[in-house]
């Protein structure tokens, strides 16, 4: 048990229901290829993996640092484009993945630093508006520079031999395909990144961030340079988001504005973190899992409701399968008011 505690940085999930849910998610993801056969299910599992990292890194900002950023998809996109363009331009090799990831990390951290210097020193509310403007400009830039980024269409690239779907490490009935290797690469990378972030928020540095969130003035009076801490937190979150972008690019073998940079994804992350529970990284795990599952499976439920309410005024329109975001939006507003600790808060209380 003490090893497990150490792995979880001394911050295990509090409460049995929460621990059970998290264990179920972990087991489900770890054995996804066995438990849920089929390409579609594996896609969902991989998407959950990299969105857990993305949502957790956003929680570093929203939940732990107490600032709202709208540029998180930009960093996600920088990661995706970094790995994708390196693989496309330099050929499908492991070294191009490394070069792309390194370059993406550098760009993401530098950009986060500049944005932070402009906006964090004044007030958190500026930060929200400025990140929104910068992220918007970045996504327009990415679609405009079509000779470099592939524009709106994005860019499809090939992976190293080992990760290609056609590759077979072991043939026969228990085949280990390149797709399976890719999945476990994404899974373990996401796991390590998540544990690393858990370590960061439970370090003395993470405690200072929380102190600033709770009472900036008092933290400053205690002698902490709040601006420096916030900037570092911002850069760490940006770096983690960029790495999540790399994972998504490796899994999708594609990168483009629609899957990385769009404002819709930014809203998705926001919904994940708030519905799961702000200020606890486990909330990001639960939020990301629920959201990706809802995105995939809620639509069929709503199609049924749409069918059932046929003939009534307006209701069928609201239950149209494409309107699932409407209901998540309502859930989002309600959870900000009534469950600021999100689903995790609810699970913890029932101890």
């Amino acid at each position, binding site marked *: 048990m003490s090893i497990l505690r150490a792995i979880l940085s001394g911050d295990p999930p509090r409460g049995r229901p929460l621990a059970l849910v998290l264990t179920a998610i972990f087991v489900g993801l770890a054995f996804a290829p066995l438990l849920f056969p089929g390409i579609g299910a594996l896609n969902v599992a991989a998407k959950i993996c990299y969105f857990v990292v993305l949502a957790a890194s956003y929680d570093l900002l929203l939940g732990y640092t107490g600032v*709202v950023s709208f540029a998180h998809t930009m960093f996600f996109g920088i990661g995706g484009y970094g790995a994708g363009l390196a693989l496309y331009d330099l050929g499908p090799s492991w070294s191009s993945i490394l070069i792309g990831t390194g370059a993406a990390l550098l760009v993401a951290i530098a950009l986060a630093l500049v944005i932070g210097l402009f906006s964090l020193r004044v007030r958190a509310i500026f930060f929200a508006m400025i990140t929104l*403007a910068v992220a*918007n400009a970045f996504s327009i830039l990415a679609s405009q520079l079509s000779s470099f980024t592939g524009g709106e269409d994005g860019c499809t690239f090939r992976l190293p031999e080992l990760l290609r779907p056609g590759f077979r490490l072991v043939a026969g009935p228990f085949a280990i395909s390149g797709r399976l290797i890719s999945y476990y690469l994404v899974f373990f990378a996401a796991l390590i990144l998540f544990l690393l972030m858990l370590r960061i928020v439970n370090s003395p540095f993470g405690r200072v961030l929380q102190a600033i969130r709770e009472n900036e003035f008092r933290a400053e009076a205690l002698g902490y340079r709040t601006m420096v801490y916030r900037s570092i937190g911002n850069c760490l979150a940006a770096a983690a988001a960029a790495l999540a972008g790399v994972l998504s690019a490796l899994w999708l073998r594609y990168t483009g504005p629609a899957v990385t940079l769009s404002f819709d994804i930014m809203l998705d992350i926001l919904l994940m973190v708030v519905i799961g529970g702000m200020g606890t990284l486990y909330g990001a795990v639960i939020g990301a899992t629920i959201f990706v599952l809802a995105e995939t499976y809620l639509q069929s439920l709503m199609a049924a409701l749409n069918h059932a309410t046929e003939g009534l005024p307006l209701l069928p329109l*609201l239950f149209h399968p494409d*309107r699932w975001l409407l209901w998540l939006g309502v859930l989002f507003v309600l959870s*900000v008011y009534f469950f*600021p600790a999100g689903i995790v808060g609810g699970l913890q209380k029932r101890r």
Partner: protein
Amino acid sequence: MTTRVEQALPPRRRDLAPILLVPLVALAALPLVGSLSTWVTLTLAGLAMGMIIFIIASGLTLVFGLMDVLNFGHGAFISIGAYTAAVLAPSLSGLIRADSLALNLIALLALIALAMAVTGVLGYAFERIIIMPVYRQHLKQILVTIGGLIVAEQIIIAVFGPVLIVLPLPTAFRGSLVFGDIAIERYRLIAVVVGLVIFAAMVLILDRTRIGLLIRAGVENGEMVEALGYHIRRLFAGVFIAGSALAGLGGVMWGFYREALTPGMGMDVMVLVFIVVVIGGLGSVGGCFIGSLLVAVVANYTGFLAPKLALGSNILLMALILLWRSRGLYPVAKR
């Protein structure tokens, strides 16, 4: 005590530097553009565009400056205003299609009044239901109003579908006026008039009327105003209704300018609104006005001189202004 009160208060210092910024930028651009007539056309078009941006942004800065509420849902009211106009326009098609400036203006004013009424009522509901529980909590305000924006946008899609809706410009507003080599679109002239009226009305109401006095006093010290027997909550609800109605007005003007509506149009234009408000100083009406003009004029010049740069010109301008004054041109003193 012999000192008179008037002497005890130092006169308000006038800060003119930001006001000079627009003319200075325009003058600096003249040698770069070269041709005088092109420069005049660019400048006039830019100033008019700035007026439209100001109309859209004014409600947001008003609500923030007076209530300390950052309303991301502002974008939803912009869309709703534009869609209201699109829904009602067919029933006024006689007035809109007529080739008479007077009839067209009546149609425009009627659409504006109806759109403002709709967004004003919705704004009241929004303030009561969404914003009231989160006064003085910025983080939650941003989250909750974003949630409201998502829900509103989805409802618009549910009702009108995700498709583009056409909102044709009234006949007499089409085309341009040409003076020699200088051309200016007629609709932009109308936008200038509307923008100036809004700006003047906002400044006059806040500076010269009793209501404005009470609102400003409420911003300074709400408890004291309540102790004097005024319902500060009612005042602030009124401010929010005004802010939402201004968003609706902005939506109508913006919708006619683009002549096509999409459910996401409010959110799209919010980026520009935020840039303008950050440049002007969050919460300042005058700053918002100058910021709008500045952004539009600079965008026009860069679009002409270096089209590749035009994309980033807003961000670049914002960065420069924030380097000069880190809280925007006219920071609202208290916050």
